[in-house]
């Protein structure tokens, strides 16, 4: 088979799997698991083959036009360069791991067939986005991912949190998608084509009339999808979905789609230094804010969600300094270790029966209950905190190195201010990352107090996947030298200054948190806390749904817990209260957008009920009065009716006679 055929099969196989899964889910439950895992696995293998054949050399382009669509043609086009080939491998790997993990995690879930089909559909859409060479086709995949995310976040729709979170995720990302769509149209009109290669050619020859406007419109969509400030608020709430979904969609792939999109069209953004500056500021605010917020969260998954937002901020920062190689490099390693973190968190939630760090910090021996999750999560957290020699170190230093490169004025056409902004906030965020990674590790695994409850052993499918994902988290850094050929060819090896600074700050953050934990941990025994799952014998998904539902009643809030033994509380001081609720951004949005919309809705309701309906009722009143008058004739006495009939007949007869005689 040619490489093009293989590449077409990559998104097609999971799509067919999803369709078959949705059709056969009820009639043939035995086929659901193979139909979920095998197409995704095959797509992963094919993506690896495509990557090997592409080999980081010239990009593969193929296009076919199904039907003429008017002024600007829409084509089914492939555009596979080194970035696309590698990101597709990552998507395939994570999706396969998540599908295998889900067979264990949602073992007894009644809605597993539709869940697995949606995950497959999502995988297919993401692969379409990755391979597509046409912006319209890319947009199709982009929107399918949005709707899959909506359905999967709302998987536990019995709980009000999940329902609210799914609607919020959908609305907030759509808020970004509208300007995104307009931006794509504007770009296509300027460049005369939806094809990425043509667009890039037009940009290179200076053919764009409004680069800043287009870049900012596209940036709005990217901010929504990739959860960048100010459209990031949906991502922490999206943790109300099942953990494998969080791992696949809200950590490794979908949220990375925005970053990947900018990486594909980076010359469009680089044509406008204003857009780059906006991106740099956006990345800076996102990184710092999410780092602080992650320190204050109590739900283990929300810590990881804020960490995801921060790491995506790093990628946006790398793009803001014009280095898409570093951005996609970080995307790849982050996808692997963040998926691992989430899947391990799923194991912890199942084992501990709670998603609250305050509760796990009062459990002894949790790490002996889940040794696989303990060791793999330690690896992933070290990668997250960018400690050498783990993968995160190399990728984060590539980002910081790119920022330093720009800040010291070595790059043409990119404002030095953007470099400084990204470099300084990147280093500060490294400190925060070290701190919250340490806090998560200590609170989750080094609790003291009662013995951890025994909820049975996790299925093999769940634990095996953790080790599979631990390999890239450990060893992806070895690929640093080889990968620069796949990207734009810029050297990705860490530079000394930023490495020392970044690693040093991360270590300082970790050590300070350790000190704070030593200081506060004595308080833990004095304030007993903890809620444990009601059905420990259920599968992991049921335990998680119950943990999510019971967090707010048990601790007063979905995000925070009033735990004096939390080292984050000591470190953040008075800031903790604000960081726990995401710096009141939700409250601001409620005041700015939700309240006016609700007021408008009640106004419309008033107009409909009180004004429009008055006219309707008024129009009905006259016939009703007439009807009441006529009804009086209905006495029930048949003879009266016949008399009236006779009188009428006589009148008619007389009239007929008069007319006939011509009187």
């Amino acid at each position, binding site marked *: 088979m040619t490489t093009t055929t293989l590449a077409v099969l990559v998104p097609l196989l999971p799509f067919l799997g999803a369709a078959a899964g949705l059709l056969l889910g009820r009639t043939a439950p035995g086929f659901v698991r193979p139909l979920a895992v095998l197409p995704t696995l095959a797509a992963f293998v094919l993506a690896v083959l495509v990557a090997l054949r592409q080999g980081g050399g010239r990009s593969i382009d193929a296009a076919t036009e199904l039907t003429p669509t008017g002024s600007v043609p829409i084509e089914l086009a492939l555009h596979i360069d080194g970035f696309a080939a590698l990101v597709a491998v990552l998507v395939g790997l994570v999706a396969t791991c998540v599908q295998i993990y889900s067979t264990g995690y949602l073992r007894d879930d009644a809605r597993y067939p539709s869940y697995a089909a949606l995950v497959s559909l999502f995988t297919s859409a993401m692969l379409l986005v990755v391979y597509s060479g046409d912006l319209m086709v890319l947009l199709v995949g982009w929107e399918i991912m949005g709707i899959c995310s909506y359905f999967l976040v709302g998987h536990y729709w019995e709980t009000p949190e999940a329902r609210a979170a799914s609607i919020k995720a959908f609305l907030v990302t759509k808020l970004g998608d509208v300007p995104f769509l307009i931006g794509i149209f504007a770009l296509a009109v300027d460049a005369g084509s939806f094809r990425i290669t043509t667009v890039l050619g037009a940009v290179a020859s200076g053919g764009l009339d409004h680069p800043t406007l287009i870049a900012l419109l596209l940036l709005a969509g990217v901010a929504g999808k990739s959860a960048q400030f100010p459209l990031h608020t949906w991502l922490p709430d999206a943790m109300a979905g099942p953990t494998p979904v969080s791992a696949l969609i809200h950590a490794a792939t979908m949220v990375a789609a925005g970053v990947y999109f900018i990486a594909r069209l980076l010359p469009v953004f680089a044509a406008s230094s204003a857009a780059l500056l906006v991106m740099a500021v956006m990345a800076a605010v996102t990184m710092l804010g999410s780092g602080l917020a992650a320190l204050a969260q109590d739900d283990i998954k929300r810590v990881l969600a804020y960490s995801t937002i921060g790491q995506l901020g790093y990628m946006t920062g790398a793009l803001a300094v014009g280095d898409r190689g570093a951005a996609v490099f970080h995307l790849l390693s982050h996808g692997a270790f963040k998926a691992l973190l989430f899947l391990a968190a799923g194991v912890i939630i199942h084992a501990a029966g709670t998603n609250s760090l305050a509760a796990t910090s009062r459990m002894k021996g949790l790490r002996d209950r889940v040794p696989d999750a303990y060791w793999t999560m330690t690896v992933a957290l070290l990668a997250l905190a960018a400690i050498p020699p783990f993968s995160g170190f190399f990728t984060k230093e590539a980002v910081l190195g790119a920022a330093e490169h720009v800040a010291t004025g070595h790059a043409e056409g990119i404002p030095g201010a953007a470099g400084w902004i990204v470099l300084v906030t990147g280093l500060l965020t490294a400190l925060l990352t070290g701190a919250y990674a340490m806090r998560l590790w200590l609170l989750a695994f080094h609790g003291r107090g009662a013995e951890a409850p025994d909820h049975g052993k996790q299925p093999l499918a769940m634990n095996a996947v953790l080790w599979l994902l631990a390999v890239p988290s450990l060893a992806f850094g070895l690929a640093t030298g080889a990968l620069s050929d796949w990207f734009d060819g810029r050297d990705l090896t860490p530079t000394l200054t930023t490495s020392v600074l970044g690693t040093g700050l991360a270590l300082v953050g970790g050590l300070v948190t350790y000190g704070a934990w030593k200081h506060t941990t004595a308080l833990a025994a004095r304030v007993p806390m903890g809620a444990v799952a009601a059905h420990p014998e259920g599968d992991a998904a049921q335990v998680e749904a119950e943990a999510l539902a019971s967090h707010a009643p048990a601790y007063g809030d979905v995000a925070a817990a009033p735990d004096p033994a939390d080292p984050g509380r000591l470190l953040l001081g008075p800031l903790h209260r604000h960081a726990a609720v995401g710096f009141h951004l939700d409250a601001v949005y409620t005041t700015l957008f939700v309240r006016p919309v609700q007021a408008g809705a009640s106004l419309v309701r008033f107009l409909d009920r009180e004004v429009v309906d008055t006219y309707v009722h008024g129009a009905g009143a006259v016939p*009703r009065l007439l009807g*009441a008058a006529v*009804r*009086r004739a*209905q*006495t*029930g*006495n*048949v*003879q009266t009716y*016949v*008399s009236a009939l*006779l009188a009428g007949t006589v009148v008619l007869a007389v009239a007929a006679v008069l007319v006939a005689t011509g009187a």
Partner: protein
Amino acid sequence: MHLTYPAVLSALLFCTGLYGVLARRNAILVLMSVELMLNAVNLNLVAFDVWLSRAAEETLHSGQALTLFTIAIAAAEIGIGLAIVLAVYRNRGTSDIDKLRDTAEGPDSDGPDSDGRGTDGLDSEALAAQKAEATA
């Protein structure tokens, strides 16, 4: 015989029947009045048929044939009518038409909501009547 005699007789019969239908209270007498009206019509049919066929060269006597139909229908009608009256009498203990006013519109039925209630009331009454009929 001149046509006037049967025509006048039939008009008298019809008026008597009409008076009976409009004024009598007993349902059986009302039915008998209806018969009177029908027979007035029959008389007219026969008389005019004879009168018209006298002038025509060829006739089918359709007026007399129609009379036979009317008699047959009248017989059927009186049979069903008497059966209904009998059933009503068994149920209500009376065959007085003035007291059989179930189809009257209630005075309170004003507006769609009360209409609904009104029909409900009628339905339940009709149901009760059916039940009583079944037990009788």
